[in-house]
Structure formats: structure tokens, C-alpha cells
């Protein structure tokens, strides 16, 4: 899974620490983006498709209970391993059934809900925690800042999957812990961005003005600095969201993430693997969902980055 962790810019400039020399990893696509920005004014078709798919996923996640044709634990042994419609299956089970005769579509819907919930929760935690750490580093400077930087280095230098595996299996697998753990993924990117931008903001007139009036630090950072750097952080969140989906599905695939009777996308792929020869639809349905979702968020993230945020491009 280390592959997912190396999504270029943000992760890498941490390992390299070469910002000072002006080789900021985040600045690499600069030339491309200027041209790209002139080229695309409207919203490209691909981005519209991505938005539609993501909206559908979100709707499915929110309305899972009423969309599911069957209960996800409803076992029907007489209808085991039925293929999907179009491959010899019946309309009763649109995407076929699994080894216990459970409806794949129903399980897929529930899985989307669980995976989306975890990814959203984790992204929110990572953004909040990372931004807070970044602000703390920018505010106190000195030793505090060094400590935060060491933590950032540590986080960026260890493959997250390895760390996550150790923590998860040794603390057991509860959903809150899983979300919290996923929430640690990528916090260092927000921290680095927030620290850099907050230091820059502190040197600007508006922050100084508010400070002169007598605003407390909390108010300066939350009320004035945060709104000014929010777009950068949101873009960063869009870019790390698919990685969290991939990480969670990877862990669940290994049997160390979401535990039965709950189900998630990776979980379905993991259990469906046993039936890859006889019933490939069990693992193909969630696989396609994972790929389409991560692809769509990445497309959206890239587009947002090009449009909104010159500093990250």
C-alpha cells in the first residue's frame, strides 16, 4: 500500500526537506497549471461525471437503509452464488448473491455507507488535528515548532500501513478506533501547509492589525487566518480522501479493518477472494466501486487544485 502513500507533491517534500532550496515538491506542476488554467474555463465533462458519481455515492451512503433491497445478513442458502442480472441471474438479486446467499447489491450499499463514513470521519479528524498542530507550531515557534516538525518527519517517514497494522491489531478492531487511526493518516500534510501559511499570514498586515486591536490568538487563527488558508486545506483534503478510502479498504481486505458482521468495500473484496473462480462478481462489484470513487475524487481534487489554489498547484 505504500504506493498510495507516495502521491507525489505533499508527501515527498516531507521526506526530502528540500523546500529551502526552492525545489518545493508542491511547486512542480506550476508551469502545467498556468496553461491548464487558460485552457479550461468551464467545468470539464470528466469532472461533471465525477461529481455525479460522488453525489450518487453520498446519496447511497445517506439513504442506505431505505435503498437496500435485503438485509445484509439475510441468508438464503437455496440462492447461493447466483450470478448478476445479464450473466444468468434473476431480477431478484441484481448483482447476484454470495456464498451464503446474501444479496450482493444490499451488501454493496451498506459497504459504501461504512467506507464513506470512515473516509469522511477520518478526513475531518486529520484536517482538524493537522491544522491545529500547524497553527501551534506557527504560533509558538522555537522548541514547540521543532517538536511538531519531528513528529511530522516521523509520520512522513514511516509507511502508514505498517504503523496502522500494528496499532489496529493490538488494540482490537472497534469502528471508532479505526476512524481515529485513519484520522492520523495524512495529518502531517495539513500541519505542514497550515504552519507555512500561518507563518506567512502572521507577517501580513491583516493578522498584525487584528492583533493590535487586541484579539486573542485563538480568535486570530480561527477567525482570520483559517478562512484565508481554507481553500488550500480543502484542496489538500480532496487529494488525501481517496488515499484514506484505499487505506481502509486495504486494511479491511487484510481482515484487520472493518470486522464482520459489518461490511466495507475492502472487506467484501477480501471475502469474495475465496470465490474468485466460481463467483467473481462478489469481489468485482466492490472493486469497481472503489476504483470509480477514488478516481472521481482524484479528478475533482486535481481540478479544484488547478482552479482554486495557486499555492498548492
Amino acid at each position, binding site marked *: 500500500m505504500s504506493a498510495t502513500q507516495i502521491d507525489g507533491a505533499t508527501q515527498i517534500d516531507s521526506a526530502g526537506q528540500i523546500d529551502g532550496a526552492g525545489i518545493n515538491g508542491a511547486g512542480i506542476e506550476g508551469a502545467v497549471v498556468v496553461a491548464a488554467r487558460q485552457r479550461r474555463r468551464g467545468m470539464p465533462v470528466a469532472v461533471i461525471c465525477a461529481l455525479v458519481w460522488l453525489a450518487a455515492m453520498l446519496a447511497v451512503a445517506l439513504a442506505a437503509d431505505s435503498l437496500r433491497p435485503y438485509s445484509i445478513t439475510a441468508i438464503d442458502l437455496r440462492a447461493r452464488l447466483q450470478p448478476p442480472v445479464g450473466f444468468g441471474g434473476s431480477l431478484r438479486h441484481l448483482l447476484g448473491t454470495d456464498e451464503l446467499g446474501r444479496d450482493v447489491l444490499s451488501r454493496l450499499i451498506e459497504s459504501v455507507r461504512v467506507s464513506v463514513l470512515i473516509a469522511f470521519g477520518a478526513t475531518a479528524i486529520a484536517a482538524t488535528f493537522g491544522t491545529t498542530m500547524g497553527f501551534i507550531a506557527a504560533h509558538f515557534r522555537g522548541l514547540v515548532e521543532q517538536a511538531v516538525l519531528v513528529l511530522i518527519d516521523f509520520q512522513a517517514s*514511516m509507511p502508514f500501513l505498517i504503523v496502522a497494522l500494528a496499532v489496529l491489531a493490538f488494540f482490537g478492531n472497534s469502528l471508532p478506533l479505526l476512524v481515529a487511526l485513519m484520522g492520523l493518516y495524512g495529518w502531517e500534510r495539513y500541519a505542514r501547509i497550515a504552519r507555512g501559511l500561518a507563518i506567512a499570514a502572521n507577517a501580513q498586515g491583516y493578522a498584525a492589525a487584528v492583533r493590535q486591536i487586541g484579539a486573542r490568538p485563538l480568535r486570530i487563527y480561527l477567525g482570520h487566518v483559517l478562512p484565508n488558508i481554507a481553500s488550500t486545506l480543502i484542496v489538500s483534503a480532496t487529494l488525501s480522501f481517496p488515499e484514506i478510502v484505499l487505506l481502509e479498504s486495504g486494511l479491511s481486505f487484510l481482515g484487520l479493518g472493518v470486522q464482520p458482521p459489518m461490511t466495507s468495500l475492502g472487506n467484501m473484496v477480501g471475502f469474495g477472494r475465496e470465490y474468485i473462480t466460481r463467483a467473481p462478481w462478489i469481489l468485482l462489484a466492490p472493486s469497481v466501486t472503489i476504483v470509480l470513487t477514488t478516481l472521481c475524487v482524484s479528478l475533482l481534487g486535481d481540478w479544484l487544485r488547478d482552479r482554486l489554489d495557486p499555492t498548492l498547484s
Partner: protein
Amino acid sequence: MFRYLSFRLLRAVLTILLVVTFAFVVLRLSGDPALTILSPDAPPAAIAAFRHEWGLDQPIWVQYLDYFAAILHGNLGQSLRDGRPALQVVAERIPATLVLTLPALTMKVLLGIPAGIYAALHRNSMADRAVMAGAVAGFTVPSFVLGLVLVLVFAVQLGWLPSGGQDSWQATILPVVTLGLGGAGILARFTRSAMLEVLGQPYIRTASAKGVPWRAVVTSHALPNAAIPTVTVMGFMVGSLIAGAVVVESVFSWPGVGRLLVVAVANRDLAVVQVILLLVAATMVTANLAVDLVYGMLDPRMRAAGAR
């Protein structure tokens, strides 16, 4: 340069220390291994004896210091399962993992870097679009999905290659391709952006304006400069040689370090997990140091930055 390197070295040691501490705290405080290994129904005397034998009855900070002392003596504890030294248990698996990760790394480099350079030099061409599409697929398709689809096509449908196991060299093909394709996409994307950034620089314009042939501009001006960010990604890839195949090894039931880690974690085999964590940290840190050294060679500005 010396100051720059010693600073980096200090950071590296600090990272290792943090990893050891992190591993120790998390693994020891999370539950009682005596109950897990012996089952909660075991007689209290047996549990007490087990705890005493493994030093689990000591205060946590004594265990911590003991652990550090043991590491410094090269003694990394024994696997709780079969009592063999954990280091040996892990070391036995390393060759199997390298059999997958080394060819995969070669594949990433040989495929990704030329593709990225070509795409950058022929920007907006069909080839460029294809490379970018491949690169996006490289990081949006999870490795287990890619691996299983390859199994479905080449092992189940076509029957050309085995779907797992370690019996023949053919068995390595699917896992290596699974690992290599994803990484190649990432490397291609990165190389392409690095090249485009460099090609937009004034010194490239100057070089071609003064009449240097385009081929020479690319090879002696653009490539060395674009190498710098690319080396960083490659450092990360080299660093994950040991444990970069956790998921892929599980897909193909490959008896490497990654598979061992998953099993050890499921069995709460503390010593083995800690050895793997340490090993991963050590490779990562070493790879990062190597990257820093390469920077020093590639980029004089880095030496200046370190001397500040």
C-alpha cells in the same frame, strides 16, 4: 556539507528512537499477551510463570529500558509462537520479499521514468494522455484489486500463470507486475511534472536560444535538474523494499515479510511485529539518508543550504 549530513544523521537516529518507543508503548499497553497466548482460562500460576519468563511482570519503564538494552545487544526478543529469535524469523522471510520487490522496483524505474520523460517532451500528445491515464490508474486502483483482476484474467480465465504459491519462477510474474505497474504510474506522473517544471525554466530557454541542440539541452540541462524530485520518490520506493508488499503478498499468499507481519499482528506476536517495525524504520531512514547524499551530489544548492 558535513553539517548538513550530521544534522540529517541526528534526525535519522531520532526517528528510529521514536519508532522504537512508539512500537513499545503501543504494543505493550494495548493488552496482556499472556492472556492472549495462553487463553484467559489458563491456570493463574501458568499465567504468572509466563509473565515472569517474558519479563511482563516488571514495571513498564523497566521493560522499556530492558528492551532498549536488549536491542543494543542485538537481542530483539523471541517470537512468542515458537520461541525462536524474532530477528531470525523475520530475516528468513526477507529473501522471499526481495524476490518480488527488487524486480518490481526495476520495473517501476525502467517503465515509469522513460514514460514520464517522453510524456513531458511530447506534451498533450496522445502518448502523453495515455501515460497520464496510466499514471492516474496507478494510484486509484488499489493493489489488491489489480492483483485479483490479474489473477482472474491470467490464472483463472487464460490459465497461463499460477495464481499464488512459490513453486516456480512463473509464480513471481503476477505479484511483480502488480507491484510494478502501480509504482510505475506514480513515478511516471512525478517524472513528467518534474520535467515540465524544468522545461519551463529560463535556463532551458537560454540554452536553446544560444543554439545548443535540443537533444543536448534535454540530456545535459533538463534531465539532471528533473532528477532531483524524482530521486525523492525513488528513495521512498527503495525504503519500502522490505515491507512494501504487505497487501500484494497477501493476495498471492507469498511467504514474505509482509505476509509474516499480517500473521504476526493477528497472533499478537509482539517481538516479530517490533522487529519488522524497526526493520522498516531502519530501511526508510537509510534510504532517506542515501537520498540526501544523492541530493548533495546532484544539487550544489543543497550543500549551501546545509551550511547556513
